[in-house]
């Protein structure tokens, strides 16, 4: 019984320390597994390449660069909402001709703090991936595989609608 009091105190201190520990979503593009969209039509854009080689005639990944040639007008198409266990993802793609210039998330999982933080971290990284790939064949983000998958599927559906 004598050891009970110090044990209880130690436990309370331990629990207090535990309560101050904060985790945060670790979303990154570390993953090397390329995504495969089931049943989707492969976009007409180039296959995924590393950042060093940039095929001629296409802009780099940065959204700010204006493509040198584009045929056709600017179009914005909304993809379908795609559900995953954490929520719904829906994206809107902006096409200059056949060039993807922007992808805007219309819906991202945000109903819990974890999802909100994760979506915030993931969205710009996914945009970067999409612009580099110029298709929905993007790499899964490490730490956000569900979100990446749903993002890609929604993007693919928008590209399909555009006949891209």
């Amino acid at each position: 019984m004598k050891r009970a009091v110090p044990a209880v105190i130690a436990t309370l201190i331990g629990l207090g320390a535990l309560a101050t520990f904060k985790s945060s979503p670790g979303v990154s593009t570390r993953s090397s597994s390329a995504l495969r969209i089931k049943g989707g039509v492969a976009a007409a854009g180039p296959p995924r390449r590393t950042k060093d080689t940039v095929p001629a005639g296409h802009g780099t990944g940065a959204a700010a660069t204006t493509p040198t040639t584009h045929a056709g007008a600017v179009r914005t198409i909304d993809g379908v909402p795609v559900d995953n266990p954490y929520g719904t993802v829906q994206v809107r793609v902006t096409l200059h001709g056949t060039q993807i210039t922007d992808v805007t998330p219309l819906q991202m999982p945000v109903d819990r703090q974890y999802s909100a933080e994760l979506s915030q971290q993931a969205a710009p990284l996914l945009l970067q991936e999409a612009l580099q790939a110029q298709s929905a064949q993007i790499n899964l983000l490490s730490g956000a595989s569900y979100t990446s998958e749903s993002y890609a599927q929604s993007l693919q559906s928008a590209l399909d609608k555009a006949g891209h």
Partner: protein
Amino acid sequence: MVAWVGFVAVAVTVGLWIRHGGISRATGPGGVATAVGQLTALVGTFAVLVQLLLMSRIVWLERAIGLDRLAVWHRWMGFATLWLLAGHVAFTTVGYAQGQHVSLWAQTRDFVSHYPDLLMAWVGFVMLIAVGVTSVQVARRTLQRQTWYFIHLYAYVAVALTFAHQFAVGTDFSNDRAARVWWVCLYLVVFGSILWWRVIKPWRMNLRHDLRVHSVKREAPGVVSIQLRGRDLDRIGAQPGQFFLWRFITPTGWWQAHPFSLSAAPRRHRFRITVKNLGDHSAWLQRIRPGVRVLAEGPYGTFTADRRTRRRALLIAGGIGITPLRALLDTFGPEDDVVLLYRVAASDDAVFGDELRKFAGTPNMRIQVMPGNEIGDDDTDLLGVPILRRDVPDIADRDCFVCGPPAFLEALKRRLALLGVPRQQIHYERFEL
């Protein structure tokens, strides 16, 4: 009835997993492991809640199953629960690790640093492992009961710690309000029961009846009878043969509750229990002082006179098992035919000598004290089959009430069956919680 409710609850819980895709979610590298990890999470946590419920002292559970059997189930369920939860941790870690092509250790670090409330969950899991490890027989033999019990209480802390991650990252709850509602309801039922039956009810009973130690009388070496006085004890509705869990409120005793049977019929202002020195707590009780407040939880037990099916009865007591049987003696009347066989290690160990002699003086009541330390086999023992057959020739026509230590009980149950006593006439109380 209890079993049906249990089955339905398990079905609903597993149904959550199936509803969210079940095994069809098992796609991609690590998919199968992750899906299994999710199933073991649901079933394992359900098992934890059942574990808590088994010990919540709900009166209907007690009447249906009995505290002693509930304790046995709790023990076995405990190990199953730990396997399920270990499976959940292992499969989920393996599944995610395979999916992201990292090592198990890297994945664990990923879980703890990037996912909310997972460090807490790990700490809770380790606590549950500690609870399990200290409850293994080898550990129980080496640990003091107090130490074991103290560690065991950390199970409550573990349940609290692991709850947050279930909703924060559990994919069965993230997008399914109905699932969350179901889960919270399960927790509420369990913790509500614990709060009511283990905390509020005993407190209310104490406020109303104000039980205190009145006197302590030495019955035999190492055996004392403790008289408890209080108000309106008849309103509690205790029957002879039943027991309570008693909590003696002193600085060292307040946090333990131990079972003792009433050793005499309860009266309006008096309960009596008789305690033999068999361990730390019962040794301490030998010297309990008058005036100490007592919290009683109960009454429990189905070892009561209303179980009788006929006029004749045979009571068989092994050692301190005499206590509820002595209380039962108070319920018999002149029209009943009672034989009491009281087995003790040595004749000095027999208690209630004067009281038993008085009972033996009444007609139709025969009492035999049988001293003998060795428990022989069914043929040679003092209470073996041949002797029982000779001393109680109409044994198959009697209600048999048996109480004593586990080995004694098992032996007597077997012999009564051999002598042709029908099962519904055999009533027993296991003296071991």
